[in-house]
């Protein structure tokens, strides 16, 4: 094989390794996102310590960090965070699996769309919290009802996102697949799935956001552990620092899990010709 041909093959084989921003740029972008919360925290700390506000109901960051440290030293923070993460993880997994399957089905098949979508849209109109009494009756007060409530919350954004994305795939792109004799599963795998990937990632992130929202509602249903329990415990015992610490823990975990989805998906979305790529 000639050197030229070998070089051309190498270039073709390396086709997926292009255009990544430098690590220092990525780090700077991440740090920029911390600027607002850090500035607010410092401002509040200064306001409390200078005596401008009392800080009794909204404690300053130093008190919240101290509460964090106490909870962590006692192992309470880890235990409650792990319980919440497990619930969100399982509920999110179930909701994503069901939402993806039903969204793909109703997007791909006109018959399934006509048959199932009106019912699902009807169910979507029910405030999810309204299911709580029924879920407790059906699945008991323990984990099952909490996980299913979270799964219901995750299901609808994922379902809508996947169905809408499949329905809006460019007919001309699908035709390219057909011209290369793709049909059925091969067409879904090689054309539809990559085409819906950006919308799917957005749907997953929206679903995850609702998952975190619903885990609080689920843990208000009567949990003995979890960050939601820390909230109710702090309210009943008059410990605002614990409430804020739990809220901050929700924020950190919610953002971290969102980062995981966004970061995992990023290598698959480098092809996007998006406004944000600037």
């Amino acid at each position, binding site marked *: 094989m000639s050197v030229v*041909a070998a070089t*051309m*093959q190498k*270039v*073709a*084989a*390396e*086709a*997926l*390794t*292009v*255009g990544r921003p430098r690590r220092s740029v990525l780090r700077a972008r991440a740090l920029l996102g911390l600027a607002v919360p850090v500035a607010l925290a410092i401002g509040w700390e200064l306001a409390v310590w200078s005596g401008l506000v009392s800080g009794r109901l909204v404690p300053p960051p130093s008190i919240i960090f101290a509460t964090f440290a106490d909870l962590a030293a006692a192992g309470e923070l880890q235990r409650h965070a792990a319980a919440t993460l497990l619930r969100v993880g399982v509920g999110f997994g179930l909701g994503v699996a069901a939402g993806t399957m039903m969204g793909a089905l109703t997007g791909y098949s006109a018959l399934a769309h006509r048959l199932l979508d009106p019912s699902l849209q009807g169910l979507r109109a029910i405030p999810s919290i309204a299911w709580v009494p029924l879920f407790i009756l059906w699945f008991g007060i323990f984990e099952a009802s909490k996980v299913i409530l979270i799964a219901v919350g995750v299901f609808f954004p994922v379902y809508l996102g996947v169905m809408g994305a499949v329905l809006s795939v460019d007919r*001309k*792109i699908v*035709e*390219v697949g*057909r*011209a*290369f*004799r793709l049909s059925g599963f091969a067409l879904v795998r*090689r*054309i539809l799935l*990559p*085409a819906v*990937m950006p919308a799917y990632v957005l749907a997953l992130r929206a679903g995850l956001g609702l998952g975190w929202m619903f885990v609080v509602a689920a843990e208000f249903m009567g949990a003995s552990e979890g960050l939601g329990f820390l909230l109710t415990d702090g309210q009943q015992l008059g410990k605002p620092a614990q409430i804020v610490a739990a809220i901050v823990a929700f924020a950190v975990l919610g953002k971290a899990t969102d980062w995981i989805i966004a970061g995992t998906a990023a290598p*698959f979305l*480098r*092809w*996007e*010709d998006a406004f944000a790529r600037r």
Partner: protein
Amino acid sequence: MLVLDRIGKTYPNGVRALDGVTLRVGQGEIVAIVGGSGCGKSTLLRAASGLDAPTDGTVTLDASEIREPHEKIGIIFQEPRLLPWLTVAGNVGFGLAQLPKPERQQRVAAALDRVALSDKAAVWPRELSGGQAQRVAIARALVTRPSVLLLDEPFSALDAFTRVELQDHLLDLWAESRPTLVLVTHDIEEALVLADRVVVMRPHPGRIAGSIDVISSRPRDRISAVFEEQKRRVLNLLDSTLLRRRPSPALEADYSI
């Protein structure tokens, strides 16, 4: 040989797009189909590709009936239709998934070399110019080594310079393996530069009005007297069938060619 035999197409809304169109294209022949908008050129090409089944008639390639897309028939659309999530190399190799990876890479590299885009193998489609993207589409269609290549106004969205460049490029590529080419175009000069035969269609419903053999050898000089004469003949045919009136000297200006 590609044979379109008494092809008819009626859309669900009742519009009759094609009626009794018969066209035989020999192996290695280049046929250009010209005609006004709505005369069924693209519909005919889609029937030939197997993408849209005709309502009446049959399409056969070497005596095999074509009812759906066929491995021996490639198609290039008006837009490049590159898959945005694949690199240039990934797009060119899209139809070679069944081949072992080393062979696929070799074929892709060779195809990119033929369209002079070896240095673009790793870039995304969004990073290409219109002409480069259409060259990738040509490489993607040719890499599977089709015996028939259908082109649906492939250069119409490009600027004049790029269009001429790609027409010459297409002829070079055709000369390597001599597939049958069926080209739909609005551009009479393009038809005359590329084709062995120019088929003129008329609308409502689409029918073949006549055809003209282009006898001059390639490469064709676009400003020669012979070329002008052939252009005049095509225009006369368009004039007498499409516009249903006698030829006039003003006609050429009307067509902006």
